[in-house]
């Protein structure tokens, strides 16, 4: 088939961004990012199994400011993909597909993402000071 130079729809450069499209793009983006970030889990476990030196190196990297910033982004990507994934699962049951419900769910995801991330970091702080306290 001959390909023409006729423009293709949707024109992402002029198409007005909407919450629905942005959340959808963010779901794919966060998913790919998390797939890469999951390698860190394997690295952490492998270092933990390898011994004190490897583990200290990995803990040092993760505990640095850059490491903590990366972990913060990973946490937000995770809680976003988690919340929006549940939104998708609800849609798959045939529910909440009317436009108002789609937007309501979207706002729930936007609120739930930082809230869940804060809960995870709260546990992190708890763990950190727990170990400092010798618990």
């Amino acid at each position, binding site marked *: 088939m001959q390909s023409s130079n006729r423009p293709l729809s949707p024109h992402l450069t002029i198409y007005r961004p909407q919450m629905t499209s942005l959340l959808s793009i963010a779901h794919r983006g966060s998913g790919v990012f998390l797939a890469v970030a999951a390698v860190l889990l394997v690295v952490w476990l492998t270092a933990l199994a390898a011994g004190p030196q490897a583990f200290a190196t990995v803990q040092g990297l993760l505990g640095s400011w850059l490491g903590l910033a990366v972990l913060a982004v990973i946490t937000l990507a995770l809680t976003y993909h988690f919340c929006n994934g549940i939104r998708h699962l609800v849609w798959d049951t045939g529910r909440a597909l009317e436009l108002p419900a789609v937007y309501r769910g979207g706002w729930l995801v936007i609120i739930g993402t930082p809230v869940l991330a804060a809960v995870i970091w709260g*546990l992190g702080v708890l763990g950190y000071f727990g170990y400092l306290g010798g618990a």
Partner: protein
Amino acid sequence: MRSYETAVSRAHGRGSTKNGFSHWWRQRITSVLLVPLLAWLAGGLALQAGADLESARAWVAFPLNATLLIVALAVLFYHAALGVQVVIEDYVHLEGLKVASLMLLYLVCFALVVAGSLAVVRIALGG
């Protein structure tokens, strides 16, 4: 439970065309499994912040944790492979490159599950 397939397509077991239904369904099954698994994993790992080697190993070596970690690794990387597969199929149009990318994707994900599980087993048995 709602049925997602017609009776004929269920009999054929080939989804709408080839294996789209199977892929879609596996993505859903792994999603549902990851909801409790990731809630547990994120909380459990966060509590290991600042942990020293002994306490982190003790957490991993606890039989329930070791089991759940291996299950989580398998489900997580399978879900990741299914997801990235769709992205590759959407954007990589050269047939050879697409097939090579998909093979590499599944190889890497499988290797990561094996490497992670191996580490968990070593820690669990090393205590």
